[in-house]
């Protein structure tokens, strides 16, 4: 079963370099060896059927028919030890706390800019910086309630942060669905491993949102604002609304009157106190932002500024997950918390810097270049896997708009065993834990492990043919 499994330089989640399974993977390894060959295939079919019937789908942009697809799912769990998780937990709590303080500072006093922690131009040239948010007080100073941060494992086994998602991170429904399916497929192993539960996510999210409600509203109305059925994450929106027992609304269901937000119900208007919005800043309010948006609510920003409605996440948080700003996050942590960062960053070249740009342009075939404002694996150049023409194209783009790009070394993401065509083969993976921040960071043990299902590929995004697998945090 492991005959096609070969180790290379990358960190392998299951095996030590000498080919012996790591302690926490032993029980899984033994179990796999003990299974009849077609048993795994049978279970994979059961899992796929389960996804299909529940309609767990996402949408791929830019293709005509058949845009609704099942997210590819891998059968074998990714296992993280409790000790490793403790580091992740502390590291992300530290990072999110610092970034939240940073956002408040940027939109109020700007102390970190005055202290020269990072250049002012970096902030003011960021596409996601919202001038309109200057001086606006947000409920309990919480800017980022819901965060998904992407981690990778370096060859030496340490976890490092690849990027932060502070706007509208998605994928949490896949984490929950994976777990649900896996419990049916491997019931016995669950019991023996003592996997930490994640099913309280919906409840924890609801609590985080409720904490944002104005204090004089004891029974706040909380809604989830979706762009609608054509959004790629629509399934997730319906799923979360159902898990929390809150209304799923679209922009046209809401209206603002006298700076108060209401939803239109069959019993008349009902006041809305907290909006968990899955709509980007740009589209939230046609009066304040993009005037051509039909997804938003006219007047929402005014109601928000007046303190009559809370938004999660706040407007303008994208400035803190800009990929160029990313390079400064360690400095931000040191400045605001006076602590050393627990989780390291990945080395990053800023292309606005003359010297660094020169280096990057000379080494395009080795580096990964990313557009700063994009996500989902769009607008990326992976040097070693690129053609000369692609490199030339990115060279031109970088020279034209250096602020729009960053470069990083091509990292060997760690690899984990996956069940592919009846055999177990290694594939590259990353990890996106979900963090809820309601004054204090709360992590759900596990997260979404994304898999680059194509052999040798380093791109794990679901929009680019990536899949996912269940993530187990086990003791110790």
């Amino acid at each position, binding site marked *: 079963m492991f005959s096609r499994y070969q180790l290379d330089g990358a960190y392998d989640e299951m095996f030590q370099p000498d080919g012996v399974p790591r302690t926490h993977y032993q029980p899984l390894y033994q179990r796999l060896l003990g299974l009849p060959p077609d048993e795994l295939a049978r279970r994979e079919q059961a899992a796929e059927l389960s996804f299909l*019937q*529940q*309609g767990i789908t996402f949408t791929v942009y830019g293709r005509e028919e058949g845009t609704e697809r099942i997210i590819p799912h891998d059968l074998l769990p990714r296992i993280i030890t409790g000790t490793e998780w403790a580091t992740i937990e502390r590291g992300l709590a530290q990072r999110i706390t610092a970034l939240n303080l940073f956002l408040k500072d940027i939109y109020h006093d700007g102390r970190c800019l005055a202290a020269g922690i990072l250049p002012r131009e970096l902030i003011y040239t960021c596409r996601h910086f919202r001038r309109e948010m200057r001086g606006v007080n947000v409920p309990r100073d919480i800017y980022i309630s819901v965060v998904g941060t992407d981690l990778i494992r370096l060859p030496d086994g340490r976890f490092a942060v690849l990027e932060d998602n502070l706007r509208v991170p998605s994928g949490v429904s896949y984490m929950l669905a994976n777990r649900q399916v896996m419990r049916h497929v491997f019931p016995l192993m669950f019991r023996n491993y003592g996997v930490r539960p994640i099913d309280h996510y919906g409840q924890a999210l609801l609590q985080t949102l409720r904490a944002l409600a104005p204090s004089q509203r004891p029974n706040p109305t909380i809604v989830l604002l979706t762009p609608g*059925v054509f959004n790629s994450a629509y399934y997730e929106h*319906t*799923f979360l*609304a*159902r898990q929390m027992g809150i*209304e*799923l*609304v*679209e922009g*046209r*269901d809401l*209206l603002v*009157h006298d700076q108060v937000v209401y*939803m*239109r*119900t*069959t*019993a*008349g*208007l009902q006041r809305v106190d907290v909006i968990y919005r899955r709509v980007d800043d740009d589209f939230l309010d046609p009066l304040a932002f993009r005037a051509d948006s039909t997804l938003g609510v006219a007047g929402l920003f005014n109601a928000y500024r007046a303190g009559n409605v809370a938004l999660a996440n706040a407007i303008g948080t994208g400035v803190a997950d800009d990929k160029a700003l990313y390079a400064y996050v360690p400095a931000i942590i040191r400045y605001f918390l006076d602590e050393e960062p627990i989780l390291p960053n990945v080395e990053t070249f800023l292309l606005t810097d003359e010297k660094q740009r020169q280096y990057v342009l000379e080494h395009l075939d080795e580096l990964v270049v990313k557009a700063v404002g994009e996500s989902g694996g769009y607008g990326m150049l992976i040097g070693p896997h690129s053609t000369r023409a692609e490199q030339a194209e990115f060279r031109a783009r970088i020279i034209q708009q250096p602020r729009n790009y960053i470069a990083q070394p091509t990292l060997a993401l760690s690899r984990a065993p996956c069940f592919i065509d009846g055999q177990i083969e290694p594939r590259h993976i990353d990890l996106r834990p979900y963090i809820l921040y309601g004054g204090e960071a709360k992590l759900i043990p596990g997260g979404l492990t994304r898999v680059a299902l194509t052999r040798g590929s380093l791109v794990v995004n679901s929009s680019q043919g990536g899949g996912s697998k269940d993530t187990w945090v086990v003791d110790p």
Partner: protein
Amino acid sequence: MLSRVAESLYWMSRYLERVEHTARLVDANVVLALDQAPAFAEQRWARLLASLHAIPPEGPIGARSMTDALTFDRSNKASIITSLGAARDNARQVREQISSEMWEQINRLFLQVSQIGIDDIWNMQPHAFFRDVKEGAHLFQGLTDATMNQGEGWHFMELGRFIERASATVALLDAQFAHYNTAEDGVERPQAMNQYLDWVGFLKSRTAFEAYCQVYTADLQPERIAEFLLLNPEFPHSLRFAAGRINSALQAIMRVTASRRSGQAERLAGRLRATLEYAQIDEILSDDIQAYLADMQEQCAQIHRTIHEVYFAPPLAAVLN
């Protein structure tokens, strides 16, 4: 409940009722066309189109072309595939409100019909196909009753279903009597075999043939047929039955939405129900039956408009104070 959600549930249900109605109508007519003279069949297709408010397709009217137009033609607003697609779109809008079983059923039915065409069914057994469609719609209804909370949303679905049914029954009677009244001058009526078959087909297209016979025997009298489809309190496709269900659904909705405006729709439905409960078929027939049917159609339309205005898209001025 969100107005948009209520409206989607209402329309999902209405469109699905329309799917079932159209399937039954086309099926009954295809079967009947086998026994009747072509000229008669052609007239009946024309009446059927009129009752569906559909535009006749180009070219000669025949069983095959009509079946195609009313089943698979996506550009035809009255076709089964159009209604089914609209029902599914509405269901997709409210996926978190309906049970997974309901969603899967409507999705399956849509995929089933959208993947085939007239050639696939015509040379085989059109009847089997239409039976599948009707059963698919019935299964959805059964799943709805068995798996969905019978709260406000369910009542809006009931409303959509019975308003559609009421207005379809009236439209069908209207087309039939328009034909019957013009044809009657000096001609002996149901005696002719063609005429008799016509009435059988008419009843069958409302699943009413057996139910009618139970009440009145197989002696088909137009007056009795009108009475049965308009005033029978127990037959689920009669106008009176539908009016009763519309009224109760509105009362249930009124209890949970407690606003003084919601009385408007309930009052109209209650009036319709009461009129039908105390009506006599002789009075209706001694007057102008077509004027009567037009009035019934208008009352159904008015109830729909009022529901729309009170629950789905109230004018802002009305809700803000």
